[in-house]
């Protein structure tokens, strides 16, 4: 009898109604949370890096800001050094970027500009710009975390100290070196600097030199943590690397040094921009103004990366670590063409993959 009643009650229309009700029921908490988050001016969503740089951000750039301005910050951890702009693009197109700020590499800034992903910042809300070098200011936000791509080497096993990228091709280090797969454009430009004296063009000759290097390569590392692991495990004695990581590893007792080859090296920085449609652009401006100030920027210098803030003073050791504050060394810095990097990225990647699988 009971079965009959139940079965009479469940008709096709009931099923459809139930489906709609279940859908609405399941999605309600999501929309409630979204609406609540967007309406709270004291909540800011941020990206944070993994590893030691992430710890630095938390300790020196996020926590003090939260305490000083009595705000809550939610963090989304990044894997590697790049914001997944492809994901951010999808979120912005859907009208809901997950964060209020995004650190962008310079090629990403061009991509963001072409696809209208970032808001122009209101300079009047960032008075600290007056203490910033002009070249560190863009319409999408300030450039921060100046880092260099040079040669990291083990001081006990690589003698004499290298002054040229060509040391990577030295047969005595065969099987003990690696190059980066992550940010491979830098690696390709490095090969060109070593053998052609200029970072461009990336062509068959570039890959011929890479092929010459291939028997010596232990790995093509993806992120800084991978390269760190290769040094720690004794797999490699030398690799092109970023200076901040080397400073950090040296601080932990690893016998590493960072060299700036005479053929040239690269200096990059990240632009901190506000995604179009960000929920809390006011707070984002507030953070930008605070973080480019002398205090937080000095902390970054202590960590090992450079700054555009004119007021930050460097000790001799800090100056040596950040590289960019030494005019003598900066003579060898080579500028990069980020439009070319972005526009040729696909072609370079195809050539790179062909080289890898050859």
């Amino acid at each position: 009898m009971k079965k009959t009643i139940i079965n009479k009650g469940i008709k096709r229309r009931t099923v459809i109604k139930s489906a709609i009700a279940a859908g609405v029921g399941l999605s309600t908490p999501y929309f409630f949370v979204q609406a609540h988050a967007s309406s709270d001016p004291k909540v800011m969503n941020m990206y944070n890096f993994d590893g030691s740089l992430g710890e630095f951000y938390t300790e020196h750039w996020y926590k003090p800001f939260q305490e000083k301005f009595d705000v809550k910050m939610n963090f989304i951890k990044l894997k590697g050094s790049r914001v997944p702009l492809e994901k951010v693009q999808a979120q912005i197109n859907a009208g809901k970027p997950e964060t209020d700020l995004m650190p962008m590499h310079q090629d990403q800034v061009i991509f963001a500009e072409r696809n209208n992903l970032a808001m122009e910042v209101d300079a009047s809300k960032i008075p600290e710009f007056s203490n910033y070098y002009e070249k560190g200011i863009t319409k999408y936000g300030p450039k921060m975390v100046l880092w260099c791509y040079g040669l990291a080497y083990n001081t006990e096993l690589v003698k004499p100290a290298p002054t040229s990228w060509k040391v990577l091709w030295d047969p005595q280090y065969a099987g003990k070196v690696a190059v980066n797969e992550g940010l491979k454009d830098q690696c390709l430009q490095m090969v060109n600097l070593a053998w052609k004296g200029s970072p461009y063009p990336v062509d068959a000759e570039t890959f011929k030199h890479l092929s010459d290097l291939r028997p010596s390569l232990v790995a093509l590392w993806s992120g800084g943590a991978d390269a760190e692991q290769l040094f720690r495990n004794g797999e490699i004695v030398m690799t092109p690397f970023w200076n901040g990581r080397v400073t950090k590893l040296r601080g932990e007792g690893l016998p590493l040094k960072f060299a700036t080859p005479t053929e040239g090296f690269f200096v990059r920085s990240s632009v901190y921009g506000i995604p179009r449609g960000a929920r809390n652009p006011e707070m984002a401006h507030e953070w930008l103004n605070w973080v480019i100030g002398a205090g937080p920027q000095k902390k970054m210098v202590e960590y090992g990366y450079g700054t555009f803030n004119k007021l930050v003073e460097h000790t001799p050791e800090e100056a040596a670590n950040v590289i960019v504050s030494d005019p003598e060394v900066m003579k060898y810095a080579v500028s990069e063409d980020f439009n070319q990097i972005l526009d040729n990225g696909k072609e370079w990647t195809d050539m790179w993959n062909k080289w890898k699988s050859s």
Partner: protein
Amino acid sequence: MSLNSDQNYGALWLLTPTVLLYLATFLFPLILLGVLSFAKFEASITTLGFYFDNYIKIFSDGITLKIFFQTVRLSIYITFWCLILGYPVALLMRSCSPKIKMILLFCVVSPLLTSIIVRNVAWLLILGRSGMINDTLIQWELISKPLPLMYNEFGVILAVVHVYLSFMVLPLFGALSSINSSIEEAASSLGAPFWRVFLSITLPLSLPGIMAGCTLVFILSMGVYLTPVIMGGNFILTLPMLITESVREQYDWPYASAMALMLLLAIGFMVVLSSGLQRLVSRR
């Protein structure tokens, strides 16, 4: 309306949340993937439309197809080694006591209980230049310089087989357990040697398990990503790596979508082939 069809509606109602979930997380993204795969990506800008450029590129750029077949080859190797290593384990599990069976089962499943990063870092400590194996062999003076045990295809296959072995062993164990042991005992009592019993009875009757295990491992291997990145030192390129790279570095969703659909079709073809073979086997 009959009682039976009413009961079917009752079952449908219970399925509603699952169907909704699948619609939202599988079917809808799949449709998006299909739409995007026909879009165009030029000068960092995606234009929706009906262009075949991405599919043409897959077959003409000289690299994507090569990497696709490289992925298939790697998956075949992994499946082969899982079968070779997994079959004896499943046989042993079938014949041993329940206690030993549990221990073996735990050993087989344990890699799945470990984080992929921890597992791969453990491999670095074992297979690395200064890892346990190389250090021991050098200390015993069996080799003069470290063997290249990782950052190559060997390292990738070893690490993936280690994890996917369980996906081979479990279906095999199920198939072997369902074999009526009195048939094998009868053959033995009639004088058939062990290898004859195995080749004529055990192996043919376990074919459904072999097919299921091979299909599972092959499909999983076609999508493997992180282990080749870590253990292959980025020298071993697979299609999922190419897809990720296309999205993450080039922001080229259309091309990545086309490659993803190609991968999906290949896996679908494998599933159809496998179920056809299974039907053939069960008919015999």
